[in-house]
Structure formats: C-alpha cells, structure tokens
C-alpha cells in the first residue's frame, strides 16, 4: 500500500502537564475519522474551513474529553492536506486517550517529522524551510528560534536563489558565445567572469562565516570554568543559573566530575561546563577527571579561569594560567568582597589587563561586567540578526563550501589561461551545489537523510 496515501496523527504539543495539548490529524480521511469520534451539534462535513468548534471526543458512547476542534481543509494547510487539530485538556492521560481513539478509527501514528515531510512533499515548503522546522522544534534559545523562523520564512532560500541567478547569468554568457561561434557578439570578457566569481565567493564567505555564529546560537557556546578547588567555580555556576533562565538541566553522558548546564546570557546560549578541580593529584580516580577536564578546556570556545582574590597566587594557579590561558580567556577574580591579597603584578605577567573581571559570587558583584564581556567577545556585542541570513546546518555549510571551491576553480582556470568550456564546467558545479541547499538539486538519499532528523509531531 502507498504509504503517503494514508492519514496520520500524532500529539503535536510537548508532552507534559500543560494547560492544553493538541492531537493533529492530517490526510484525506481526517474528516471521516473526526465524524466518527466528535460529538457536536454540527455536521463535520459542513463546517467551514479554518474554524474552531466546541464538542466532545467519544468512543462509541463513552465521552473521552471535552475539546475544541480546528478544521482546516486542503490545500491551505500546513501539510496541504485536510487537517484536524483536537485541543484537549493537557494531561498526558487524556491526550493519549484521544490519540488512541483517533488511531482506532483509521489514522496511523505519524513518524517523526512526517507532517513537515508532507508539507515539503506537497510543495508547500522547500528543503531549507523544512529543515528550519526541525530547528524551531529543537531550538534552545530565543535567538536560534528566531533564526529558524527566518529560514522557514524563506530568507535563506531567496538568498540562495539570488546567488544561483548570478551564476546562471555567467553560464549563459559563455554558452551563447560557444553556440554562436561566428556571430559578432560582444567578446566574452573573462575578466568580468573572474571579478563576478570573486564577488560571489565573498558573498558565500559571508554566509559561511555566519555558520559558526549560527552553530553557536544553535548549540551554545561551549564554555569551560577552570580553577583550583574552592575558588568559587560552583558558586559562579549557581549564581549564573539563578540569574539567567536555565534552559536544560542535567545532561547525560558526562562523568560524575563534570556538570553541564545550558544558560542564556544576554541572548547568547552558553553550554557551561563545570570541571573537577584541576590540580596536581596522585589519586587515580581524580586524575582521570582532571585529564578529562584538560581535554575539554582545549576544545572549548570560551575558557573562564577563576582565581581567589582573597588569597595570593599559588603554584597551581600559575600552572593553570600557563596551561590554559588564551588571548580570549576571561580571568575572573572572585571574592572581591573580601580583602584583596592577590598580587596583581604577578598576575599581569601571565594575563592581559583587559582579560580581568572582578566579581563576588557571594555579594552578586561584577556579574553584569562578566556578561557584557562575554557578549562583547562574541559577535562584537552585536546580536541583532534582523538583516542577516544565518546558516545553521552543517549540510548547508558543506554545500556552500563546495560552491565556493567550484568558483575558485573558475578563477584558477581563467588565471591558468584555459578556455571557456573549462570555465563553465565549474560554474555548473557551483550552480548545482547551491541548489542542494534549497533542494532544487536532488542528490541521492538527501531527503531521507534530512527527514530522519525530524522529531515527532510537527
């Protein structure tokens, strides 16, 4: 049987004790199913599209829940199919009961991402937009949500379309000169092709650069807090968590010594990693933890080194600074509420003055300075993404890099003194790679790869 013929259903709101929850049904049979399970004073087949209707969900005579039902008829719906959304009381039990009833009367449980897959397959959204839906669902911060929304809006697609138009124009010029050899057309200006390719590379570079930004906004800035025991690492973590909204708590997979938390500081998502105290040790168990910490520190985006301002630097501190201090680390002097005993002259041998931030986790002093410093270090303090197109998918980046490489080949071909037909081969490639982003170029298996990422419901 044709899989895409049938009607699918799933719970489309996060599982939890929310006020209401939604069971969504999509497909030709959506109304037939509703007709069998919806107790109302209206005829479901005569209800106007895009209206909300009060009633009860029943199985035979048994009332299951009091609901509001939205009916949206094809094609102007999310999936371009008939859609019914049942707004239930949010308890997990009631939602599951309603879903079970829907499935009992002929719907199939949707696979992860299947609603969006249908929207894509029915031509309502293109590939990059479909991917945006995944991102919206998975977004951990307001900004990454915003980026995904813009992508769903099609701003990436239209940018890619613009780039492709420029490439095709170059191809057309070259092809015309080849296909009409004896026509006195304006001589093809290879210099112009070269400079246009350069311009395009610049535009693509901007998009690629944005990828790291997009990745940070999406996955969080990996931030590691280092310091010997009792300088206030955990206190800092706790203070930040208390002040800023913690987005996810308790991430699996780390050792007992390393704790990970997601926080949003001034809109920048941070993946905060608290490490076991780094110091010389002979204890084998602890040694493993320390080794791990070092590794994490080396791979992180941002290193915060905490020192105790109320004590002078000891060898462990200096060792830490020597090993982990990078130009873009932040040196935090904690406990400024106490008398300062730290010899700054010694400290300045190892760090730059600009790097230092003074705080007190106990008295909540200097935290704003710390936050501003972080914000300033990334994106130059500019987090306004309103006009930017931000690439947040590794797949997109790969296609962009391929497109760029092809354009670089074009330039190399021109510089090497090769002729038109060699230029067009790489222009064609670059056109093709750009099309991969929007799905206009269809390569093997790409679709399945993407949709396997989708989560249930939407």
């Amino acid at each position, binding site marked *: *049987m*044709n*899989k*895409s*013929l049938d009607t699918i259903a799933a719970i489309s709101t996060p599982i939890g004790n929310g006020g209401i929850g939604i069971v969504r049904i999509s497909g*030709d049979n959506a109304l037939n199913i509703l007709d069998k399970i919806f107790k109302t004073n209206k005829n479901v087949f005569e209800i106007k599209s895009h209206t909300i209707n009060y009633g009860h969900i029943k199985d035979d005579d048994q009332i299951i829940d009091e609901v509001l039902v939205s009916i949206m008829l094809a094609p102007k719906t999310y999936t371009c199919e008939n859609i019914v959304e049942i707004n239930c009381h949010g308890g997990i039990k009631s939602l599951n009961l309603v879903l079970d009833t829907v499935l009992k009367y002929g719907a199939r449980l949707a696979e992860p991402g299947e609603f969006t897959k*249908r929207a*894509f*397959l*029915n*031509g309502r959204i*293109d590939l990059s937009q479909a991917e945006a839906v995944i991102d919206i669902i998975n977004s951990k911060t307001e900004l990454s949500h915003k980026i995904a929304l813009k992508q769903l809006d099609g701003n990436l697609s239209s940018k890619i379309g613009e780039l492709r138009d420029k490439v095709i124009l170059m*191809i057309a010029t070259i*092809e015309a*000169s*080849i*296909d*009409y*050899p*004896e*026509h*006195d057309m304006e001589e093809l200006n290879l210099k112009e092709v070269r400079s246009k390719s350069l311009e395009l590379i610049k535009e693509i570079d901007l998009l690629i650069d944005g990828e790291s930004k997009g990745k940070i906004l999406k996955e969080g800035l990996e931030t590691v807090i280092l310091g010997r025991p009792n300088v206030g690492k955990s206190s800092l973590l706790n203070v930040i968590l208390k002040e800023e909204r913690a987005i996810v708590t308790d991430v699996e997979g780390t050792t007992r010594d390393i704790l990970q938390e997601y926080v949003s500081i001034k809109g920048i998502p941070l993946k905060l990693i608290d490490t076991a105290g780094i110091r010389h040790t002979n204890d084998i168990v602890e040694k493993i933890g320390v080794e791990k910490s070092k590794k994490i520190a080396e791979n992180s985006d941002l290193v915060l080194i905490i020192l105790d301002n109320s004590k002078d630097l000891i060898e462990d501190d200096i060792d830490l600074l020597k090993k982990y201090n990078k130009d873009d680390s932040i040196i935090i002097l904690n406990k400024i509420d106490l008398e300062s005993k730290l010899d700054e002259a010694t400290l300045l041998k190892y760090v730059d003055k600009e790097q230092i931030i003074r705080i007190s986790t106990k008295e909540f002093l200097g935290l704003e300075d710390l936050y501003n410093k972080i914000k300033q270090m990334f994106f130059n303090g500019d987090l306004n993404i309103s006009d930017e197109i931000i690439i947040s998918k590794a797949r997109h980046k790969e296609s962009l890099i391929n497109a760029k490489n092809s354009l670089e080949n074009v330039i190399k*071909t021109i510089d*090497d*003194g*090769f*002729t*038109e*037909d*060699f230029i067009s*081969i*790489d222009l*064609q*490639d670059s056109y093709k790679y750009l099309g991969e982003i929007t*799905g*206009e*170029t*269809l*390569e*093997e298996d790409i*679709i*399945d790869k993407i949709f396997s990422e989708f989560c249930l419901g939407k």
Partner: protein
Amino acid sequence: MSYLVDSVDVIVVGGGHAGCEAALASARMGKSTIMFTISLDSIALMPCNPNVGGSSKGHLVREIDALGGEMGKNIDKTYIQSKMLNVGKGPAVYSLRAQADKFKYSKEMLKTIENTDNLRIVQEEVIDIILEDGTCKGIVTLGGLIYKSKAVVICSGTYLKSRCLYGETIVNSGPNGLKTAMFLSDNLKDKGVRMYRFKTGTPARIDKRSIDFSKMKLENGDENIVPFSFTNKEEDIKRDQIPCWLTYTNENTHKIIQDNLYRSPMYSGVIKATGTRYCPSIEDKIVKFSDKDRHQVFIEPEGENTNQMYVQGMSTSLPEEVQIQMYRTIPGLENCEFIKFGYAIEYDCIDATQLNLKLEFKDIKNLFSAGQFNGSSGYEEAAAQGIVAGINAALSVDNKDPLIIDRSEGYIGVLIDDLVTKGTKEPYRMMTSRSEYRLLLRQDNADLRLTEKGYNVGLIPKERYENFINKKETIEKEIKRILKISVPPSEEVNRLLVNNDCTPISTGIKLADLIKRPELSYQKLSELDKNREDFSNEIQEQVNIQIKYKGYIDRQLKQVEQFKKMENKIIPIDIDYFNISGLRLEAKQKLSNIKPYNIGHASRISGVSPADIAVLVIYLEANKKN
C-alpha cells in the same frame, strides 16, 4: 481498393537526411528495406543552408560516423570548404563545419543508397500506416498500394501539409517547390497521434555574377582540414577550397523591413505555427534586437559549379518585392539578381513526447520516427535520429535489445532524451549548452565513445573495428608512458620552455605537468621525449587532451557518476502515478505520459519538480520494502 505489393522487414518513409541514415542502417544490418520518397530528386536534399556541422552539429555528424552512418563520409566526398570553429574556446567545443556542394551531396547519397544491398527506393507518396492491435504492420501509398513490414520509420521532414509563404503569396508546396504530402498527418491524427504545427524559413539565392565581392570580407577555409569521417585521413580528401564572404546589414535595410513588417506573414498573423528562436528570420532579428545597428550576412556558394549563392542570415518571409529592395541595401548586393526568393514554410510534426528513447511510438508498436517530423530542426539532428531509429527498427525485427545512447555517452543521447522527455514547442536545435558532460563528449573522441556500439549492432565492419581497438590501446599505452616521464631542469629543457613563452624550471618536473601548462602541449614537447614513437595526428591529439585536461575531465567523470546513480534507480513499467498521493496533478499527468525509465529520466521532465521526485523516490523505497 488495395493491392499488396510486397512484404519487407523495414519501411522508411522519406529520403531526407533522417530517412537516408535510417534506411542505410537497416539495410546494412541485413534487413530488407524499402525507402519511400516523394521525389527521387530530393534524396538528402539541403533545402536551406549549404553546410554540414557547426557548433554541436559537428559533434553529431562525427557520432553518426562512429556508429557507422553515412553523413560524415558523404560530406567528406562533397565539401568545398572546411573550418574548425571555436578553436579559441577549448577542445570540448571545437566544432567542425564544412560547406557542401549541395548538388553533389544529394547525388553521392543517392548513389550510395542505390548501391546498398537489401535496400530499394520507391518514388511514391505514403498516405497512411497499417495499424493492427496497436502494432504498425506497413504502409499505404497514394495509389492504394500496400507494402507490409515488421517496422516502419517515418522521416517525413517538412512535407506534411506544408505550405510556403512569400509575403502575401502562399503556395501549397514542400520545400524548394517540391510536392507536399497532404494525407499522412490527418491519418496519423485519426490514429491518436498528437500533432503540432511548426515553421521554419530560408533566405533567397542570389546570382554570383551580380555580387560585388570587393565590398565584402573574404572568408577562407582552414589550411589543415579535419575529415568528418574517422575512416578518412586528411590527405585522402584534401582539395582546393572555395571561399565564402561576409558583409553586413545597415540602417537602410532595417528601415525597409520595419516599413513592411505588416506584410510579413509572421507578424500579420497568417503564420500561426511556432518558429525557432535559434535561427530567426531577419525580420525577427530586427524586431527583437532593435538596438543592434547591423547584422552579419554570409554569402556562401551552393556548390562548386553553380552561380547560386546562399545569403546566410537573411532568412525571410517578406513579399518578394520587399526582399529585392532590402537585399539591395547591403554592401556588395546593390545590384544583386534573385534566382530563388526566401520563404517561410509551415508543416505538421508530432509531439515527440509520444516516443520512447528508442524513437518508437509508445502507443504504436513497431512505428518509429525521426527528424523534423519529431520537431527538430537541422540536417544533422535529423540524421542523428535517423540512424538511431533505423538501428532500433532493425533490432526490433529480431526482438533484440535496443540501442539507447545516454546523455553521458553522446550528443545523440542528449538530443533524443531532450526530444522525448522534455518535448519541444519550437523546432529543436542542438547546442553544446544542452549537454551537461560536453568535456567528455568532444567531437575528437566520438569514435572512442561510440564505435563499440556501432560494431555491436553490426554497422562497423570488422577491419574498422580492429583499427579502432588498436588506436584506443595505443592512446592508453602512450598516456601511461608519458605519466612516468620526468624532465630535469637542464639547459635544453629551459631553452624550449623559454622559446614557448613559458617560465623555466629549477627542479625536475613531470612531463605531464609541463603538458598541462597553457603555453605547451604534448606535441610541442616532443623534443624532450626521445623515445616517443611517431604517432598520427589523431593519436597525438587524444594523448594531449587526455593529459592536459585531466583535472577537468576527472571532475566531469564525477558528475557522470552522480548522474548514473539516478539513472540506475529504475521505475517499474506498471507504476500507476495517479495512485501516488503526494504527487501534484501536473506531475501525475506528465509522468504518466512520458513513462520515464528511471528517476534521473523522471527528473528531467518539465513540470515535474524536485519535490515530486522526492515523493517518487520515497514511494519506490516504500514499495521495495513491502
């Protein structure tokens, strides 16, 4: 009243460029073949331009030759000027073009056909096909005669219900004043064949003695010529060449055309058929490119012993009196005398999406077709389809697997795939830009690509095939040898480099890397390579191209690999697209009509979007699993 005259294997309807190749291929493959023509005087007729080849068309001719066709050999016998075009633009788009002696061209082709075993010519108008249970079983002539056959190939060119337009004057005739075929297209329509009406045109012919060549630019042929046929060597066919001439239109020409535009059947609405954008009439050029203050006009002889001169670039359907006035504004043509006037011709042709890649009708078994009847334009495009249709008709007689050339194997593959998959709404002209893999589909390696196929169907004689294998192996061996050679930074080497405007080397370098330098080539570096054998020009050229452009060729091969992956996803023949709910209605209709062989093929159908393809892929996957 009907009388059964004969029963043969293959019948070819039409004796133009498509018909000749189809009939010769079929007969040479051992099938008894009859070729019907409306006039014995119009065999392989060139009613328009007097040349063969040109951009991408030259590729087609060489491919036809590699398959064992006749066009390349025939133009080699009858050319009067030869030129390799596009040489500045790279080897992939080198385009061979020859001016033909039209009269000789027809005569030589007729001679070949008359002397081919298994092949007969009959001068008769074919008016209908015999159709039994969806299978074509033969044809009926105007006189009511019946000829039965196991396959029929229609190559009726521009003759179906054709009419010629000279301004307000309309003549019901075929090209060049020949008889029109009035009945066949209606009878095909009755059998469910969808027809279009296309239009093409030709310029006037001028008396050579009335032209002042001193006002024109001389256009000579190349000194070293390349034969079209791989069986010929330059020295075999070298002869004195005849020049062409170049002049230009001017404001006066344009003004006369503008003032009389309302009398052009194209613009007055008399012609409703679709013309081609690719070789527009002079009226079209003036209207569409009004900012250009002049257009090129080439004066080309129609033959060696004739005063008829073809005026390329001045195709027109304006009234004859206007033609005289406007031609006479052109430098060198001030006193020109007309031998024949330019005209537009309208004719019936089919919607080629009714055909499969064999060039057989999907709904009428054993009925094949080729050439302008399929909506193409040009002698070379016609001949290319002709040979494929002829081969497949002959193969079908024995129920053998068809010959299908894919897009990565030849321009012929691109041409046929485009016609039957995308269809065409105007006369289809081959262009290099239609080929995705043209760096591999060069005119110089057509034999390496296609001789094997020609041999397998029986069109390439054993001796020629052995020579080909020998050539192929020699090239491969020589490339291998070159790749192993390094050159030292010696004085001798650097002297040669400097003499070729090339930077000298300071350390040893691979000979292959020197060949890759734009200033150098395999041939130019022979001095540094003492052990080199004395190879023919052809072999040297292959070795040079394959080494010099290796990086690009490898990139293209990668593209072909991607292409093949999609081509290998086969779609079952019995698939019902209307059962696949994710497909848009337009896609369902298009897919049901075209019946694509595989996913790659489906993705080239216009009106089928990438999203439709995704649906199809998922549907096929799901069905595979079940």
